[in-house]
């Protein structure tokens, strides 16, 4: 059973299959770093938005295909990527840094300054 495929209804009221791109998510002292595999996506087809603390990544994959090409074998069949994450309060959604290169999306979501871990020095008297 394939659990990475969902469907959504588009503006034309068509039901479209979508694919959740596989991600690596890590956290360090600066914030969250997310890597997402999105082959076939160019930056003009990528949409990243945050609304109500929900990060939404959406993109359409496109492939160059010759005229009159017929599919013989296809493991990758779903052209639309969609994935959502809820962001906790200490993350600063206004400062998301996104880079897309070779179909790999890297998102850096920093923590609010005040949320970063701070060493509290102890004065000894």
């Amino acid at each position, binding site marked *: 059973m394939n659990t990475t495929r969902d469907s959504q209804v588009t503006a034309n009221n068509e039901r479209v299959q979508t694919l959740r791109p596989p991600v*690596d998510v890590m956290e*360090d002292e600066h914030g969250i770093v997310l890597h997402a595999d999105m*082959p076939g996506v160019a930056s003009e087809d990528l949409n990243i938005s945050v609304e109500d603390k929900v990060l939404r990544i959406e993109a359409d994959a496109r*492939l160059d*295909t*010759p005229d009159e090409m017929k599919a*013989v074998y296809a493991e990758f*069949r779903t*052209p639309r990527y969609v994935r959502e994450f809820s962001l906790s309060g200490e993350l600063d959604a206004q400062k998301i840094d996104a880079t897309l290169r*070779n179909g790999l999306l890297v998102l850096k979501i920093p923590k609010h300054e005040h949320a970063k871990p701070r060493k509290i020095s102890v004065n000894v008297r």
Partner: protein
Amino acid sequence: MASVTSRSGAWFDPFEQLRREMDSLFESSFGPASIRSPARGAFPAVNVGISPESVDVYLFLPGLDPEKLDVSLEDHVLTVSGERPPTEGDGRVYLRERFSGAFTRAINLPDEVDPENSRAEYRNGVLRVSFGRRQEARVRRIEVK
């Protein structure tokens, strides 16, 4: 080589029908799979398409250095191998879904591919290997007079 246009609708329409056929194919088991059949969910995913002038193989390999890919053709089997290191990071890991490590895919190509007429291109994380089809195999339109 054939002219190339970018029409995502054209690509995915034929695959949609194929998807339905393949889903039903995999659901029922009949006979042994080809010895070269990949496991489901293998990395990278592969698509193969045939057009009048070419055979095109697409491998979905985001975030790679194309120089480190090994692409070879022997006896109509196209083999693509490489390695993708795991994502670096010092901190806590919450999710690790992306494939990492060495990979290799072997794809059976139809007999009529012309090894002398081939091209490979890596764009947006998709490796596309194209082969011309031998003259004899090309579809020839027969005019009805």
